[in-house]
């Protein structure tokens, strides 16, 4: 359901907060581990005690630079931390240390793949470093909230996109791309349930052809890809209703309610906060020289787009297949491994690459999904999978039988050869044996044979099925086809 119906255009910008996976906080030496007991990871600096001061974590800076380089952005040689002043119980200092006028990463881009296979470039306005706030807990306390400051001071990279997305699907594609990228770079674990990868969506609508953007609403803290899509679609429909009903969209912050499937205005949201940004006098400007940036550039892993492009080129895979296979660094590495094992000493052939792609992106991905496992936890490692695929390419088993072998490998943990052996699943490729089976079936089914010879071509399938049944599914399908055709023809 797109707003492109009825002459409306949707405009979406996303603000992503990625928690950087440093060991210690951005401005203090407290641990950042998730799920610790309340306030056990909040030291004097995190608690904003009188007299304390911030000191910058070099790894947080490195991670931000990695991101900037990966999206082709200018990494600022000089960036400044600024104070964003407002009062909230989870913000102990009464201000958040963030970056305002001079962020560490300036303009970049990220390409996304749309459903129809086309590419679209999404602009990234900026990315900057800031500290996370603590948490308010409300359960068990009737009139009060309990503040846990363990999370206060965890480093965040705020990634702001240009308002370049024109549908919820594009927004999700972009979000997924950023999600993949930060995991490739090993700067964020992307765990949306634990809140280490959060997304706010700025959504507005306008008449197709209009020059100015419409008033936008900000939907905050949506914590799954599915919800992002639903929330945006709901909001677009809501805004269109408002305007078509003669009203005006209010610039405000809204929360997505996943149970009701709707967005609603945040309660007790007062007049827009005046954050009174000014450069933090407790911190000096961050200066990064080209040597430092170059060093980091050299440590960048093969990025998703590069890997996908390499797969397309080297293995003649479709863009779609390549994208699926590179959705995580580990999956890409697994696939690479399978192909290399298949090929042995030689260069992999396109058939081998395609076969591996089908299985990794197909059966393997489905099994991982069903059991909720990451590729790194796969019960079939790359070597074993390659072992299975080799038996397909050398005709030991058919593709169909291979699926059964795969199931058995997944549950038993054994390798393909052991299972083929123990279950006697070797394909029958002996021409003589197949011919004999065909002869038997033809003899047992004179009626169908006569019908086929008198023109009922569809009965070919019947004979294939019967021969397969007789051979326990093990007749080599290609050979069966050839021989059956010849024999039926008479």
């Amino acid at each position, binding site marked *: 359901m797109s707003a492109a119906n009825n002459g409306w255009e949707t405009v979406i910008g996303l603000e992503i907060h990625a928690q950087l996976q440093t*060991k210690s906080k951005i401005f203090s030496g407290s641990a950042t581990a998730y799920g610790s007991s309340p306030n056990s990871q909040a030291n004097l600096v995190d608690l904003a005690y009188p007299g304390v001061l911030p000191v910058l974590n070099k*790894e947080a*800076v490195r991670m931000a630079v990695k991101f900037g380089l990966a999206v082709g952005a200018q990494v600022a040689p000089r960036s400044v931390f600024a104070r964003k002043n407002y009062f*909230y119980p989870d913000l102990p200092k009464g201000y958040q240390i963030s970056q305002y006028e001079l962020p560490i990463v300036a303009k970049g881009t990220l390409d996304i793949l749309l459903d129809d296979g086309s590419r679209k470039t999404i602009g990234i306005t900026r990315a900057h470093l800031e500290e996370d706030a603590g948490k308010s807990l409300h359960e068990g*306390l009737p*009139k009060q909230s*309990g503040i846990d400051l363990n999370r206060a001071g965890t480093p965040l990279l705020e990634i702001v996109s240009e308002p370049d997305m024109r549908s919820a699907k594009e927004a999700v594609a972009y979000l997924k791309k950023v999600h993949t990228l930060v995991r490739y770079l090993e700067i964020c674990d992307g765990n949306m349930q634990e809140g280490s990868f959060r997304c706010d969506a700025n959504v507005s609508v306008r008449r197709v052809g209009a020059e100015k953007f419409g008033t936008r609403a900000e939907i905050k803290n949506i914590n799954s890809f599915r919800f992002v899509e639903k929330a945006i679609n709901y909001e677009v429909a809501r805004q269109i209703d408002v305007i078509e009903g003669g009203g005006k969209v209010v610039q405000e912050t809204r929360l997505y309610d996943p149970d009701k499937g709707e967005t609603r205005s945040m309660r007790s949201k007062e007049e827009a906060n005046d954050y009174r940004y000014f*450069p933090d006098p407790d911190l000096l*400007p*961050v200066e990064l020289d080209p040597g430092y940036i170059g060093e980091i550039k050299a440590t960048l892993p093969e990025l998703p787009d590069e890997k996908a492009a390499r797969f397309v080129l080297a293995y003649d895979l479709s863009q779609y297949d390549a994208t699926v296979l590179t959705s995580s660094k580990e999956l890409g590495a697994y696939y690479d491994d399978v192909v290399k094992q298949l090929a042995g000493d030689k260069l992999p052939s396109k058939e081998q690459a395609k076969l591996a792609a089908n299985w990794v992106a197909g059966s393997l991905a489905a099994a991982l999904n069903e059991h909720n496992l990451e590729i790194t936890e796969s019960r079939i490692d790359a070597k074993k999978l390659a072992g299975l695929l080799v038996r397909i390419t050398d005709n030991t088993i058919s593709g169909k039988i291979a699926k059964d072998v795969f199931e058995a490998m997944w549950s038993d943990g054994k390798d393909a050869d052991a299972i083929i052996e123990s279950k006697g699943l070797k394909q029958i490729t002996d021409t003589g044996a197949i011919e004999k089976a065909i002869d038997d079936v033809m003899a047992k089914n004179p009626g169908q044979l006569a019908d086929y010879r008198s023109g009922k071509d569809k009965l070919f399938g019947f004979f294939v099925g019967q021969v397969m049944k007789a051979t326990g599914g093990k007749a080599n399908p290609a050979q069966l086809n050839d021989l059956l055709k010849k024999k039926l023809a008479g």
Partner: protein
Amino acid sequence: MSLNRDQINSIAHLARLSLTEAEIPVYQDSLSKIVDLVGQLDAAPTQGVEPMAHPLPGLAQRMRPDVVTEKDQHELYQRNAPQVEAALYLVPKVIE
């Protein structure tokens, strides 16, 4: 006066300071005088002059290694806390 009542009230609100009715004109008076004092800056010849954020120019932010150096001392730190329960700092309910 340079500042009016409404401005005083909105500043006090932004700064989370309660003001009694009697205090408003008092602060209005002194704040207006201070604003007048700083108004002297208007005439200063600052075209092309960079703002000075730090007294020691040319210094850059030091970075520390990513190492956990702190241990759990919440009992010590919470000795000063006005209201704590189950290691959480209590405040009147925060409505999201």
